[in-house]
Each structure stands twice: as C-alpha cells, then as structure tokens.
C-alpha cells in the first residue's frame, strides 16, 4: 500500500550528515533548527561537553543559514548592512558581525567570510533572505544566493581538532590562524576549512558540497578514532558557548525583526559588542541611532557574572542589594561550569548599576519543593573560558 503522507512538506528535513548522526544518536534526542532535524544530544550532553573540552567533537552546522553575496557592489552592500567595517576584512578571513535595524537594534549576528574581493559568504542562525534582499536594493551589481541547502557544514571543535584534520591529510591546516579560511581538495572537490567555531576553544568549521558529506564524515571519524572524536548536540553547544561568553538568539538577545514589544530587543552596546560598531567607516544602517546611544550610554549592559554557590542562576533576577528591593537586571544564561569550576551566568544589567553590588535571587526545586536564595555575584570582564590553545598557531599537537 502506498499511503500518501498527509504531512508531506511539513516534516523536518534531514542534514547531509544525518545517516551517520542518526546511527550515533542512541538517545533519539532530537530537536529542530531552521526546519532540519537536529540533535539535542547524542548520548549525554555533559559527556559531549567534556569531549569538546578534552578531545574533539563534531557539531552539524548544515542547518545554519548561508548566503553567498557576490558582485562588484557586494562589499559596499554588506558594509552598509553590518556595523563592522567589511572593507577591513582580508581575503580568506572571517569576521564576526551584527546587523541592526534603523533604530540600532540587533537583527542577528553571524559571520562574514571574505572569499574574494567580490565574493562573500554570510552565515547566521536564522533565515535572513528578506533582510538581505532589502539590503541589496539599490546596489547595481550584487547577487545574493541562498546556499543554506547547497552547502553542508560540520564544526570540529576541541584541543585535538587540529591534529585530527592533519591526520585527515589537510597539510598546512596547522598554519591557519584564528578566523583564517583555507581551501583543500577532497575527492577532487573543494573542502573549505575555516578556523572558527562557537566553543571558545581550538576548532574548525568544514564546508563541503552535500554529496560528499558522508565521505567527509567517515574519513574524519576514521582520522579521529584515537583522538576521542564524538558528535555533540545543541545542549553541549550551549554550555561551551556560555563559557566562552558568546551570545545566543532567544537567550541574550531577541531578534529585532521578531520583537513586538518596544525595545525588548537589544543594541550592540547593550550586548557588550560595541567593539563591532565602527563609526569610522562609511554609512551603515542604524548608525545615527547607535551614535546617539553611544553618546548617552546603553540602558543595559550584558555582564558576565561569577555567582556564589553552585546553584545555576537560571531565570534569576538581579538586584542591587541583598534585600532585593532594587531590581537592576535579569539573567539570560546560567550554568555550573565544569571547566572553570564556577557558577557562571550572563545577565542584562542596567548600565548605571552594572558596576555596583549585584545579588541574584535564585529559585530552585528539590523533589517538588521550591526554594530560593539570594547570593552575591561578581562581575567578570574576561571570558570565563579562553585557553591559550584557542589562539595558538600552530595549535598544540600539530
């Protein structure tokens, strides 16, 4: 019997790496990302997190949105869209960027890959085609192509990741500096490798045409067999990125184009990303609003907190005093950090109170009973986790 699937077209798509990932997902723990079936974890989130920190692990970033922007006006178009100076990105380099509404509120963050003078790739977490179309309007020579389904991508992160790639036969990969792009031949086709990632550790991202995805996976896992290679899912990613101090949409910021309530979205300054805003470059969208904000100071500042005790401060409110009479902010992400051995969090704090005393009111549950406690928070100015190997070239063991 050939039953017609009444939900055809609504079912989640699967990534080019899916056959291998399905086999390894012993918990059948799936979530979704941009319409793709996506692993929440494979075996155990914490185990996968330790793979990232102590060996190496792969994360399927194929569902990420990828756009090629090419043409004589590509650089000018991107430079007007993002707050960073795209003209300063050298060929075969990657730059982390944010882009904003006219009011200077963050639409999304992502990376720009400069592949050639007139050829770029933009990657981001959420679909961005409509904004790119608006951004490209008025530029005579620029074409935007959505590569999201046309390019498979796998992130390989962790201290042994460089060694694994070397063993895979990518000679010279050890020379790649952070944010470098390299090109290798893989089965006579291009394998693009960027020294980028979302874990704050040594790591690479591999970009390959979808029909070679499984070959890449198999050869990578063969090369990594004795280097502890393991797949990781969304849960472990979220732990690693928080230790690195990276922001996540839906956690630290609400995408401006999806925000209904007035100023429930964020500006780059509020997200502590002022370093991404370059007022010395030509006009960009949101410039006037951001300039004004820079002058008066952001209302909130995303702040790294080291919190007393070991109870993760999830959803906690932040106060300026222990009696909790003066509320000054809220926690966006929180966890017990195994690598740092600290109770860490990111929190949005009203800027005028960010330098003062900070207290978190933490609610937690023990066997169905609710408890709360108020604990002192310490402000941190550096990422919680920033090992030297993340920046070393060549990396250790290469």
């Amino acid at each position, binding site marked *: 019997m050939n039953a017609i699937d009444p939900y055809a077209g609504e079912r989640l798509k699967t990534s080019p790496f899916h056959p291998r990932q399905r086999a390894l997902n012993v918990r059948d723990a799936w979530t979704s990302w941009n319409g793709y079936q996506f692993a929440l974890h494979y075996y155990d989130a914490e185990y996968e997190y330790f793979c990232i920190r102590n060996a190496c692990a792969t994360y399927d970033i194929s569902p990420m949105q990828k756009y090629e922007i090419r043409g004589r006006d590509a650089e000018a178009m991107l430079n007007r869209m993002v707050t960073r100076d795209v003209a300063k990105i050298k060929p075969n380099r990657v730059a982390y960027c944010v882009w904003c509404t006219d009011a200077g509120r963050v639409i999304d963050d992502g990376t720009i890959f400069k592949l050639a003078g007139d050829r770029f790739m933009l990657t981001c977490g959420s679909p961005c085609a409509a904004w790119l179309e608006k951004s490209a309007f*008025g530029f005579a020579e620029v074409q935007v192509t959505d590569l999201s389904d046309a390019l498979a991508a796998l992130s390989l992160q962790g201290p042994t990741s460089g060694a694994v790639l070397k063993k895979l036969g990518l000679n010279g990969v050890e020379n790649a500096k952070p944010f470098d792009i390299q090109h290798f031949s893989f089965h006579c086709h291009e394998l693009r490798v960027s020294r980028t990632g979302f874990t704050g550790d040594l790591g690479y991202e591999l970009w390959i045409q979808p029909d070679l995805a499984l070959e890449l996976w198999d050869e990578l896992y063969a090369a990594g067999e004795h280097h502890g290679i393991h797949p990781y899912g969304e849960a472990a990613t979220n732990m690693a990125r928080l230790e690195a101090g990276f922001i996540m949409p839906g956690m630290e910021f609400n995408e401006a184009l999806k925000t209904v309530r007035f100023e429930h979205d964020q500006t780059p300054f509020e997200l502590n990303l002022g370093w991404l805003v370059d007022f010395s*470059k*030509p*006009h960009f969208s949101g410039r006037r609003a951001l300039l004004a904000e820079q002058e008066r100071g952001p209302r909130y500042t995303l702040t790294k907190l080291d919190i007393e005790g070991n109870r993760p401060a999830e959803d906690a409110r932040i106060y300026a005093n222990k009696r909790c009479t003066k509320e000054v902010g809220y926690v966006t992400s929180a966890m017990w950090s195994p690598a740092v051995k600290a109770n860490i969090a990111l929190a949005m704090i009203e800027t005028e109170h960010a330098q003062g005393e900070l207290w978190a009111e933490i609610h937690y549950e023990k066997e169905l009973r609710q408890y709360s406690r108020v604990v002192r928070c310490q402000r941190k100015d550096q990422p919680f986790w920033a090992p030297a190997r993340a920046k070393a070239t060549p990396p250790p063991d290469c």
Partner: protein
Amino acid sequence: MRYDAIVIGAGHNGLVCAAYLGRAGRRVLVLEAAEAPGGLAADREFIPGFHASIAHSLSHFSAKVATDLKLGTHGFGELKQRLPTVGLRLGGEHLVLEGDALAGVGADDATAYGDHQKRMRRFAAALDPFWFKTMPRIGSAKPADVRTFAHLGLNLRRMGKDDMREFLRVAPLPIRDLMDEHFADGALKAVLSWDALIGAKLAPRSPNGAVLAMLYRMAEASRGMHSIPLGSVPSLIESLRRSAAAFGAEIRCAAEVSRILVEGGANDLAAKGVQLADGERLDADCVVSATDPKRTFLDLVGVRFLDIGFTNRIRRLRCDGYVAKLHLALDGLPEFDGLERPRGRLIAAPDMDAIEFAFDDAKHGGLPARPVLEMVVPSLEDASLAPPGRQVLSAHVLYVPYRLQGGWTDAARERMRERAIDAIAQYAPRIRDQIIHSEFLTPADLEREHRVTGGHWHHVEFALDQLLMMRPTYEAAQYSTPIPGLHLCGAGCHPGGDLTGAPGHNAAQEILQ
C-alpha cells in the same frame, strides 16, 4: 560661490519654497532640468501656435502664498472667474454645477446637493489650518507638535457632535457609498466623485483617502470650484518665477541634477550641495528637493547614505500614475451636443460604474475599454493659447496605467489615444473632423518628460498610509530627512499634490526656523 540653499526642481513648489527663502534673505539657487520652469504646470507648445499644460485648472492654490509672494504684482490673475463643472449626458441634457447652483437634475438631488455641499464645506473648513502646518512627529513632545494635535482635536470637536461623528464616519469611506447615500442621479454622482478620485489609484468603490482628497481640494475660498487664471495655468508659474527672482533667487534651467552630494566626516555626513549631469559641482548649506521622494532618495542621494528600513519604505511608496493627458489642436470651437460654448470642466463619465469599469481595466495593467475624461477648452479663457479661430482642448484621461502589461509601445499609445477621442466623440460627434493635431501623454511619458516617478501627479499616492505625518513616510514627513541639510518641499510632502504651493510654503517655514 556657495549658496544658502539649492532647490532641486522649478515646479511650483520648488519656486514657492525658493521665493520664501529668498524673501527671508537667503541666497537661493533653483535648478531645473527642463528648458523652462513649471514641471507639470509648465507651458507646452504641443504644435506650433497651440499651447497647453498638463495641469489645466486651479482649484485650491493658496491665497496666503499668492499674497505673501506678491504674485498679483507679478502677473498672476484673479481667480474670481470660476469654471462651471458640466456633467455630460448623451443627448445633451447636461447637468451644470456653478457655485452653489446645480441645474439639470431632479428636485430631490438638487436639495440633497445643497445639504451635502454645506456639510463638506464645514469639514473642509475644519481641516483648512492643517494644510499649512508641519505635521507633528509621532512620539514628539515638542510644544508645537502637541499644539497641532490639540488644534486638530479642537477643530473636530468644534464641529459639534453630529458633524464630528459624520466626519469620522465618512473620512475613509469609498466615495460611492457617500454618493449613494445622498443622490440618485448617476451623472451627478460621477461628477461629485470626480475630485475625490482623479489623480489617484482609486475608483468609486475603493476605500481609502478619496473623501479626504475631495476635502483637500475644497481648501481655500474656492471650496472646490476650479478656475483657469488669466494667461492660463502657466501664468502661475511665470508669476512665481518672477516673484522668486524678485526675492533674489537665482533660477537655472537646463541644469539637471545628477547627484545630491552627501559629504563630511564619518559622523557628520550632511547634504553639502549637488552635482549636475555635466559634472559641475554646486555647494550649499542645504539642499531642498522639490522632486519626488523616490527620485530624491533612491536616484539622487543613493541608498549607501540611507538606512535599510528607511530605504525600504521609500522603495515601497506607491507612485504609479493613472492619468494620461490628451491635447487636441482644433480648427474651431468643439461642438458638444447641447452646449453652446464648451466652457468649464466637462466630465465625460455617465455614472460611477463607468469610472469603476475604466479603473478595473487599468488596475490589472490593461487599457480601459471606455475611458472617462475631464476636458477643458483653455483657449476659451485665454485666446492666446491658439492661433486666431483655432482652439485647444485639454483632457485628463482616466484610468491609464503607468505599468501597462507588456510595456508601453507606440501602438498601445495610439490605441489609447483613439479610445480617448472616441469617448469625446460620443458627446462631440464632429470632433475628429476638427482635429489638426493631437498629443497623447501616458503616465510613462509624463515620467520621462517631467522626471516624476510613475508619472504621478502627486509624486506619492494621496492615500491614508501616505498622508499627514506619514507623507511621504515617517522620518521624512516634516520637510526634513534623515540626512542633515537635505529637505523635501514637493508634492510628496504634506499636504500633497495639486497646485497649492502648500508643501513649498511649509518646507520654507521649517528651513527658516
């Protein structure tokens, strides 16, 4: 040589703005791409000896502007001679509207007309002050902005409860509903809807700003009656040109601006002047654009200097014109059945369905099978427009789409010209024999010849979403723009199009503040 202000475009609003700036002692240069000033009101000798202008009558040109700028002493004739409006009927039993007098309809309609007209005049009077005010910026707490809001509220309240309710009810109404409520005669309804619709992408059944457009056209003492000034419409332009020049403004024609120069340090970019098509650079402390917003921002400034959201709003402004223009050079007085002298505005639209059906064809990008028209014979008011014994007939032809399916071709233009002449011939059967020469201008032709996007009379559709503090769009609605030193003063600004001088006047007040 550095100017205080450069005005782009010597249409009537550009000239009005320049004259006010000059009057205040500013050193002003007006740049006009065409050979002569005037824009859509310029004189057009469409064949030697015969003159017309795209805009062929005046209804609510500002008396304040005329007085302030001393247009009378510069040759602008009195407007006391109102034109009757004639609703043409097959067979010659036409209806004639002249001031408060209405002839050619039944007693019920005549009574209803009086009541309707009085009510509309009360509404129009309540709105009068706002055509000459900068609209408040949304979210602004500036005293002037709050006062304007309060004034509007007070004026509405002062109309009394019944009128206020009625005003709020009818303001966004399709004009057909308003007409059907009050009148029975088809031709009367067509004639009374005419000024609510002409120039817009609206038909009798379209909800939106039709009633407001009608009330806008009832501004000033004429209260909706049209007239042709002494020396025809271009005489207004000539008087404005002289006035601006007398106030010290310099006017250069055949000087097409190719770029508005946005320059300065990274954090203080501002409009610093313009570059002409021939490469010449002219510097000024501010640039005032009387051209339409799309042309101003997308072509002359360029998107690189604009935010993406703002650019997108400008890009989506609705600017497609739906009015074509027909000029006929005639060997004598056109002979309309039942009219001894074809004086006045002759409306060739038998009923509102005729208007609606013509619109239906056009809104899908087609040519109307049976166009509806407004005609005047301007040479009856000013004999110098045609050689002795000859006449000029000028007609607005509705609805002719700017975006014709398959694009405009000579053949398509020819077909439309013939249909328009056929429509006239229904009422003036001998017209074809009288034609010496004809000229037919589609909205696409108007765009090309007059550099106005979409060939739209009002630069930007006169619609609820593009009116008041939304005209042409927020952040550009107070005659200023996101770019310091760049101002707008054309029909794309509040209060809107037609020959009023109000946008030019209001822009000058803002610039002079």
